[in-house]
């Protein structure tokens, strides 16, 4: 109750100072993909065109301010991206949440399903099923509030070491979930992408994934990226493998290979916004567990005690407020 009241009040007071452990002098802002900054810098500072418009960078050294200068045509393109975001009435947003400060890409590590089930003396599978419901709720909220991309960490490469029965259960759950969501994705203009080593998945699931990606590839309202059999290290290694093949085929020169090229070959380049602005991890763990290692360099990390099946609108709101408080301070 107190937490909710404090949350609601804090929405209204942009000049509020928070305790040191949640200091809000802003630094992290939505990303500009690195290749756009190639001409200006070798660093990959957090930046966005909105930032440039406000022309404030209280925390950055002068050298970094130079990195924020991007050509006008790219600024217009960024603004176009923002303007092309699903149009929203401010009324559809909860009070205190600003549309212009909304993260474009949110990533989630959905942790705590098994703990949730054990706490209720339920079978572990029930925890995962409850987790699927939380995911559906989150997708609806993202669509409603204008978030363009949601990436969820569904199954890690490390999870293959779990008991076979559990892995099979998860694969069946995933296959059932994709089949259920396919129809609504087509209706609601949602694009579904899957990243990870899908060759390790059951054949039926692999074919289903290819089918659903193809069917929804032209949808543009919202993109759901599901990371299955994925890890950050796997993503980097496969990017290097793809570049090596291009070098061998003479498409690119070996001397042209740099970190920007690696970024373009990562699996998260299936989206216009490959770098998450906000990462949410549930269940109170404070680590990223081999998820999107490269992409999370400047992502706001939000760790919450809620277990994933309990993660609802209030928790998501809290995460967005935490993100937006940093954004608001940066722009002022």
């Amino acid at each position, binding site marked *: 109750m107190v937490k909710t009241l404090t949350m609601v009040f804090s929405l209204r007071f942009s000049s509020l100072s928070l305790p040191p452990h949640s200091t809000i002098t802003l630094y992290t802002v939505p990303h500009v993909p690195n290749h756009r900054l190639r001409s200006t810098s070798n*660093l990959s500072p*957090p930046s966005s065109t909105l930032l440039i418009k406000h022309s404030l960078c209280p925390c950055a050294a002068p050298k970094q301010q130079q990195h924020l200068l991007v050509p006008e045509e790219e600024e217009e393109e960024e603004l176009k991206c923002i303007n092309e975001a699903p149009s929203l009435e401010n009324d559809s947003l909860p009070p205190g949440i600003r549309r212009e400060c909304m993260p474009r890409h949110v990533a989630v590590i959905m942790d705590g399903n098994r703990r949730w089930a054990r706490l209720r003396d339920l*079978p572990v599978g029930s925890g995962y099923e409850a987790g699927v419901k939380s995911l559906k709720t989150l997708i609806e909220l993202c669509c409603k509030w204008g978030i363009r991309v949601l990436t969820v960490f569904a199954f890690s490469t*490390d999870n293959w070491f779990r008991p076979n029965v559990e892995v099979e259960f998860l694969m069946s759950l995933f296959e059932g979930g994709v089949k259920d969501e396919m129809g609504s994705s087509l209706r609601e203009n949602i694009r579904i992408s899957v990243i990870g080593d899908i060759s390790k998945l059951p054949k039926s699931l692999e074919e289903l994934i290819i089918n659903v990606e193809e069917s929804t590839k032209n949808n543009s309202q919202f993109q759901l990226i599901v990371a299955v059999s994925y890890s950050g290290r796997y993503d*980097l290694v496969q990017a290097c493998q793809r570049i090596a093949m291009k070098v061998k085929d003479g498409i690119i020169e*070996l001397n042209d290979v740099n970190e920007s090229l690696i970024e373009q070959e990562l699996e998260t380049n299936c989206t216009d916004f490959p770098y998450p602005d906000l990462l949410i991890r549930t269940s109170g763990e404070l680590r990223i567990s081999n998820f999107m*290692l490269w992409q999370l*360099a400047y992502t706001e990390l939000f760790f919450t005690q809620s277990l994933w099946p309990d993660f609802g609108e209030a928790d998501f709101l809290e995460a967005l407020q935490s993100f937006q408080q940093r954004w608001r301070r940066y722009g002022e």
Partner: protein
Amino acid sequence: MDFRDGMHKVYSFIAQIGNLGLHVLWYFLHFIVSLWYFALGIVCALESYLISIGILKRYEGFDINKLRYLAVVVESEEAYQIPKIIELLQWLVALGVKRVCLYDTEGILKKSKDSILVKLNNATVFEEADQSNPLLDHKHISVEFASFSDGKEAVAKAANLLFRKYLKLGDSDKIQEEKIFTEARMTEALTAVGCRGPEPDLLLVYGPARCHLGFPAWRIRYTEIIHMGSLNSIKYGSLIKAIYRFTMVQQNYGKCSLPFDSDCSRLLSIISGN
């Protein structure tokens, strides 16, 4: 007309009173919330003080040896505060931390390496051999300095090493090709280009941003990340609390040692239609 003017004046008066009331309510609520956060700050500071003077016994007696490698990320603007960095390192030495990596994006800490090490007794620059050196005594600390060039740029350099190996193979050996691009080979290549540091167990972030600011991505798969706030407000008690909390954590690393329920097998058969 007089009646209408009178009513208009009454409405106007009521509206002004209402506005004034709302303003007063607004500022009152603002005061209450500010008071709440002020009180929260006092409580945090008090807790930190009580931990540092040893009154809160819960935070004593943790096993510092669980923390094999600590990373500290400092926002580049704050990295110029070398006395604060030295103070932090002295606290870490007092707590028995033996190996630490200091990181900032722009390499300011790297440039200040000499001035930092000279102020610390028994501090040396990290070498790979230090990892397994049992002779490092309680009050010795080895310090690694890292910056952005040890992160993404290093991965690009390591990738180039792998590409050269790959190109040398030609078209003949497909099996060998597949063995080049593996995580283990990438780790070896990173070591070869000079990025030898191990994976930190714990990463403390000092600065306004709650992100790791480009710390070498390859090394933080399972690293616990704690945001400590600004370097200006570092507290010994907060440091103890963060390290204590880390030593209490249990990681499964994505695997699970618990048996899957038999009920789930039944559920599985229902879902698959058997």
